[in-house]
């Protein structure tokens, strides 16, 4: 009898299936990967299991008995726990307080903190989850926060752990540590559901895998009998086509130059003398684990944040004192990682969202009023050129899918007159087709001689698009390397974890001597 069985699960959002007739069975003591692209229905399925969504059809069996979870509270009571992609921790409380939050320990509300900490350290030692119970969560790295989330579940005697894309925020080395923890959990009889879209991880850690595609289950099988190629075909329905970056040589001259940017936010150093020089026609990939100053760097380059010191130059011209609108008029473009908050006004129409950039342009104003004719023509042109799927130019952008929203942003930002682009996680949350589209648009801009700063936590993406690769850690650049076909990925991984390139080189030289 499987530990958990989900049978024929259906879930419909706005007339569209997010899950259709999906089965999932997890044995006790197994690591089960749930593989699929963004939007395949992985998270929806887990949210149904966890009591966040109610299913429209099907059955959930826990230890052979049918169960109905109305909320995560019910799921936790059955010893099912989930670590969400965005951690659910209170930053102003300590690790120990976060772990015991909501539990009534003996002596409540005057808990014996020392005894509780002992219990936490027990778990920490047993599973190799290093943590200081008295540290404040706001002080912890992302990897440490993830450990707190896992301990929080183990502290509640969780039998089945669901991890939603746990490696997205980790360096390669931290990922290895996490996998070691997962193996120990398995040895202790726990089961793990690992939600991911990264095939190599599935091969490395999972015992069995269930592949979802377009809301349906494609296959469940032991990973032993599968190859990576087969899995990728199951996942995307065809073979993976790597985006080919053309061997356009770097043009001489200066494109976008960031020089000695420093930024402190609330006394915490976010950028530490960041200098990057991107030539026209070059894509410089900036790799690094999420939250190491990438967003601050992008915003400092755009003028959205004012750096404490340092300069931004475009084709040799100093933009440092310019406001955002002037920089955009000067030829800078920005693609943010957060479409909904930074790029679009969701209740407004496609036309109005396009107008956001142009509202001060003479071409779009007639006698003091908005020139609706020109605006409509421009929007309809963009809808055709970028193949945006929408009912009309007047529909609110909230009705568009993520991919189509991103296409609209590209249509607005990547116009012919751009000289430099700051692209922050431009494919985040997009499916493979939309990601390819975005990447090809960036390559098209490169051909038009744009200088492109591509900031991405997805190392694959950086490797497939960049001419050179820089790595950022804790707000500082660890080094810049040419992206040759034989580039040392392990070295990049070490740089992402905070080792400087010179250090690594020096270490090698030391070995040789």
């Amino acid at each position, binding site marked *: 009898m499987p530990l958990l069985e989900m049978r024929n699960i259906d879930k419909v959002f706005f007339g569209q299936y997010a899950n259709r007739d999906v089965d999932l069975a997890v044995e006790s003591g197994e690591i089960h990967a749930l593989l699929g692209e963004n939007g395949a229905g992985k998270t929806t399925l887990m949210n149904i299991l966890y009591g966040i969504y109610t299913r429209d059809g099907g059955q959930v069996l826990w230890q052979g008995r049918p169960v109905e979870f109305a909320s995560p509270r019910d799921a936790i009571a059955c010893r099912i726990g989930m670590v969400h992609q965005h951690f659910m921790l209170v930053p102003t409380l300590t690790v120990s307080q976060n772990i015991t939050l909501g539990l009534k320990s003996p002596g409540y509300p005057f808990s014996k903190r020392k005894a509780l900490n002992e219990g936490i350290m027990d778990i920490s030692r047993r599973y190799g989850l290093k943590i200081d119970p008295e540290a404040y969560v706001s002080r912890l790295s992302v990897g440490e926060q993830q450990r707190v989330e896992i301990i929080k579940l183990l502290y509640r005697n969780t039998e089945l752990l669901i991890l939603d894309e746990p490696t997205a925020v980790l360096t390669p080395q931290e990922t290895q540590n996490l996998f070691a923890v997962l193996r120990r959990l398995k040895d202790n009889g726990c089961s793990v559901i690992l939600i991911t879209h990264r095939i190599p991880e599935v091969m490395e850690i999972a015992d069995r895998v269930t592949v979802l595609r377009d809301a349906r289950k494609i296959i469940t099988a032991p990973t032993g009998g599968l190859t990576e190629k087969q899995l990728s075909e199951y996942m995307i329905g065809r073979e993976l086509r790597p985006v080919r970056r053309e061997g356009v040589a770097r043009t001489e001259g200066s494109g976008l130059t960031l020089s000695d940017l420093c930024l402190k936010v609330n006394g915490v150093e976010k950028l530490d003398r960041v200098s990057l020089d991107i030539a026209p026609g070059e894509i410089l990939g900036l790799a690094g684990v999420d939250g190491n100053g990438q967003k601050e760097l992008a915003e400092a380059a755009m003028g959205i944040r004012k750096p404490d010191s340092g300069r931004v130059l475009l084709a040799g011209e100093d933009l440092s004192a310019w406001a955002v609108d002037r920089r955009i008029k000067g030829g800078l473009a920005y693609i943010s990682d957060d479409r909904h908050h930074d*790029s679009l*006004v969701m209740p*407004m129409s496609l036309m109005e969202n396009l107008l*956001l950039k142009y*509202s001060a342009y003479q071409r*779009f104003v007639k006698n003091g009023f*908005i020139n609706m004719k020109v605006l409509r023509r421009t929007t309809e042109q963009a809808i055709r050129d970028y193949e945006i799927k929408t009912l009309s130019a007047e529909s609110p952008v909230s009705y568009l899918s993520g991919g189509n929203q991103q296409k609209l942003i590209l249509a607005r930002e990547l116009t012919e007159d751009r000289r430099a682009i700051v692209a922050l996680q431009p494919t985040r949350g997009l499916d493979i087709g939309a990601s390819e589209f975005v990447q090809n648009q960036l390559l098209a801009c490169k051909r038009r001689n744009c200088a492109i700063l591509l900031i991405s936590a997805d190392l694959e993406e950086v490797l497939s698009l960049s001419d050179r690769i820089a790595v950022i850690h804790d707000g500082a650049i660890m080094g810049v390397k040419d992206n040759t076909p034989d580039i040392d990925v392990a070295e990049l991984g070490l740089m992402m974890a905070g080792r400087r390139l010179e250090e690594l080189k020096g270490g090698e030289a030391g070995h040789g001597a």
Partner: protein
Amino acid sequence: MGHKVRSAVSFLLVALISVALAMLLISLTGSEVGRAFAGFFRGIVGSSYSIAEVFVKATPLTLAGLGVAVAFRSGFINIGTEGQLYMGAIAATAIAMYLPNLPALLMIPACMLGAFLLGGLWALIPGLLKSRFGISDVLNTIMFNYIAIAIVGILVQTALKDPNNYFPQSPPLPAASALAVIIKSTRLHSGIFIALAAAALVYLFIFKTPAGFRMRAVGLNPRACKCVGISALSCVLISSLISGGLAGVAGFCEVMGLHHKLLPGISPSYGYLAIIVTLLGKNNPLGVVLAAIGIAALQVGSLAMQRAASVPSAIAEIIMGVVVILILARQTLFKGLLQPARKEEKA
């Protein structure tokens, strides 16, 4: 059932609940429900005077409501129209008092402009405090109400006091400053045209001009505006200036159309009612005009009800509070009716 029909049914339910509550309250006060309701309706449509009276009250409500709507559109929560209305009244009175020899053709525009500017300034300061320093607009605008009302109280005893009158009020203002009465033997004055013209202008401004567009965008998502280079600061400043200015013009209309002098209690909470008007009118200029007429009718009718059946007019205020709460809670209250097919929203 289509969505529109469902929506209409839900509004009908709101009306039914309100009427039922009104009947309950009226009978609790020991009055006859039938007579009270008859009095209520006769008070609104019983004579040309009563109809005109509805529009007399709708005039300041429309102007101040438009002001609130302009502010809300840019995300500036202006609770201070009451104070801005008073500041407008002060400016209009002062100009008419100290430049008594201006001809009507100059006098009225001068008073109106002065009222617009002083009212606008009264909203601009909290607008600046909000957008530049992040200080709560709600708190500041409320505090500015107290300050403005106190200033009126001081002025009618000092600089603007009528020396020939025992009461704290300004002297009668020159005839050239008066807004013409447009229907004889009623109090309806040409301020209603100013209000309607303002509604049309505000509509054009917020929906058709680039500045109005930017203002709306800032109200919906200031963060995205910052990222595409639209200055939230200037949008909030423009909208607060216009917002307070419109409330100031409401004050101008009350002084020049009705009282022809400045009194301490010139506004029976029009500034606060304007917030209700805007909420009911959904920040839309046409909606504001209709809601202003509706609220004005409710007020006029309840006063008539008090006269006809000696029902306390406070009941009308209770009903108004209940109506507003019901309308604002309508989406949640009648969820089953409004979204029957959908079990839940996507998170």
